[in-house]
């Protein structure tokens, strides 16, 4: 060990002892600090997780979705449109999609019935979202029955549940076969809910959308980019709103930290005077005080972040649900998929630790530059 490192260790030791001696005061600051980190981390973790869910939702979406509008309302699309669009330059594939909503009175929620373009379940079978499975207590081979378009019971055998990569995307989802779908909803043959267009070059998406509208003036074209931006804007706005509310709290906390750091008691001034009189240099006292702040920040940050993590990913984030989620239909239970990433941790440290450091730096420096001979003049 070199002298420089030994010096730092001695300063850390003293800083720890110093904090332990003022337990009551430091505990209050620690709790306030932890609360601030908890709230801000919570908003960021929750918002980022929702964003990730939305991205997962869109990851498999086609570049363009074409809907038909009749009198301004979403209408079913005849299969003939498929050929009309297949010939467009830049379009690699056009597929008709089938999906719709079914209201389940027992659950009080809308379920989404979806016919996957590939690997659809066998007739009479269904794959269901994990939230739905949980809420209805369903497992493999159980039978799920709903009243169809004619009011008769329509049974589906559960072939499996959907994996939990994204709960937002498939919590209320039922994947069914095309034949069952048409039978259940009495959906006319030769009609689709909408069309999925694949476009190879992302730079041509806009051009293709324009050409679709030229050929089919009654169509509405939605691009994946546009949906992504809509989601993004909605989340950003909500998250930004919450963060700006919390920034007031952050400011209050910074003021508290500043006040605590600058309002040195007579006892503390005397102690710093003693340290300087017995040979501690201004830089030594400064380093010791910075260690105090650093250790407090580290522990409060970890405590706040871990609590926020548990709140968001294991307790369903009751504090934020109403504001941030908002746009979704009723979900029986909503568990986000956890993720840790370094950029997010760095952002959070910038947003929470930096205000503390900034607020305490000048008071700490003032304390460290107290006159050493004050001790003699008492």
């Amino acid at each position, binding site marked *: 060990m070199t002298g420089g490192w030994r010096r730092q260790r001695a300063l850390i030791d003293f800083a720890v002892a110093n904090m332990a001696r003022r337990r009551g005061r430091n505990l209050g600051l620690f709790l306030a600090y932890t609360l601030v980190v908890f709230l801000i981390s919570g908003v960021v973790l929750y918002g980022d997780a929702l964003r990730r869910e939305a991205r997962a939702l869109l990851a498999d979406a086609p570049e363009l979705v074409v809907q038909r509008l009749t009198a301004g309302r979403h209408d079913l699309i005849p299969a003939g449109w498929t050929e009309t669009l297949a010939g467009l330059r830049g379009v690699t594939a056009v597929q008709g999609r089938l999906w719709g909503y079914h209201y389940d009175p027992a659950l009080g929620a809308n379920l989404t019935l979806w016919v996957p373009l590939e690997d659809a379940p066998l007739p009479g079978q269904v794959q269901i979202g994990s939230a739905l499975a949980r809420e209805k207590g369903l497992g493999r081979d159980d039978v799920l029955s709903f009243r169809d378009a004619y009011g008769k019971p329509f049974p589906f055998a559960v072939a499996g549940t959907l994996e939990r990569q994204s709960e937002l995307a498939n919590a209320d989802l039922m994947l069914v076969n095309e034949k069952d779908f048409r039978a259940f909803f009495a959906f006319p043959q030769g009609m689709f809910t909408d069309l999925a267009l694949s476009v190879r070059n992302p730079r041509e998406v806009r051009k293709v959308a324009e050409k679709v509208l030229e050929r089919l003036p009654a169509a509405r074209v939605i691009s994946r980019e546009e949906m992504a*931006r809509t989601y993004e804007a909605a989340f950003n706005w909500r*998250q930004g709103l919450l963060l700006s509310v919390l920034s007031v709290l952050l400011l209050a906390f910074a003021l508290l930290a500043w006040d605590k750091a600058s309002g040195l008691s007579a006892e503390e001034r005397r102690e710093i005077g003693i340290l300087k009189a017995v040979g501690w240099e201004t830089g030594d006292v400064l380093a010791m005080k910075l260690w105090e702040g650093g250790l407090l920040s580290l522990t409060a940050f970890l405590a706040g972040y871990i609590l926020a993590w548990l709140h968001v990913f294991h307790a369903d984030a009751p504090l934020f649900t109403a504001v941030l989620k908002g746009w979704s239909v009723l979900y029986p239970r909503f568990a986000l998929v956890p993720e840790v990433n370094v950029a997010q941790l760095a952002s959070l440290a910038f947003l929470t630790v930096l205000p503390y450091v900034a607020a305490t730096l000048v008071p700490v420096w003032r304390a460290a530059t107290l006159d050493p001979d004050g001790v003699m003049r008492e």
Partner: protein
Amino acid sequence: MIFQPPALALLFASSLNALMLTGVGLFALYLLVRWNPASGGEAQIALERRTHLASTLVALSLVLGLPALALFVHTADAMAPFFIGAMCAIGSLKANVWGFPALYTMLAGFFLAAAWLVLNHLDNRGWDYPLIRPKYGLLLLLAPLALAQAVLLWLYFLDLQPAVITSCCGSLFGPAAEGVGHDLAALPVQWARPAYGLVWGLTLASGGLFLARGRGGRVFGVLSGLHLPAALAAVVAFVSLYIYEEPNHHCPFCLLQAEHGHAGWLLYPLLFLGTAAGVGAGLAMGVRADSLQDAGPLAARKLAWVAMAGIGGFGLLAWGYVWRSNLVLG
């Protein structure tokens, strides 16, 4: 306008940084006029005490600078999907005119702050404040840079239009591009490889000589500085090709992505830290002051070790990628 948490964090950190360094810069002006070590008067002591605050603030600025730089590049990379045509950080940075200037000021700020901390360390070792004037003179450069960086970051994030069509890295480093990026990419691998090897070898040799014999510290400093552009040119000219295993993909930013094993996150920190330490070692050997006859070489040695580890590590890693690659070029 994109206000995700990383963007907010960067804006906050850079604004705070600008505020701190502007304050320190104003203090530097005041100090350069009033500094009088012969006086033991109250004013001089007060001035001396303020230098503690100034050096703490610049140290904090450096501590912020490197993670902020990393966060900025990472955010740019992560935002790429929101711009049409963007494939990596380049597309996001080129989404408006402020991106690259902001990146350059952050890089320059990092190297200047590192140089300042070396001067500060040495100055604290001499009993008569031997470097106080060059040190505070340098702050007059650092402060406006920090201000420019904050302004550029604000402009960048405020001016981001999500739907904008931007360019991908191919347009900067591809065969059809123009400018420095293209020129570097067009360097024939056959001679870019030995050329970089020569610069790298010379830099390490001069560092080795300095550590063994205590001579040539300033030469090592200069070579470490020159090694940086050579290393960046090498990344564009050939290292990238071997990592992507594609003969025409020269982008230095795609290296940061997970598909390529985060190679950039290993290469660039080593390179930047090594360069800063190497230049710092040269600086420590270059200062002339009676009170630093022992402290200068001592600090230079420590810095030279760090520089050798950084620059040596960067080169070894780069050659490792070249060697292990499945791509065969000339």
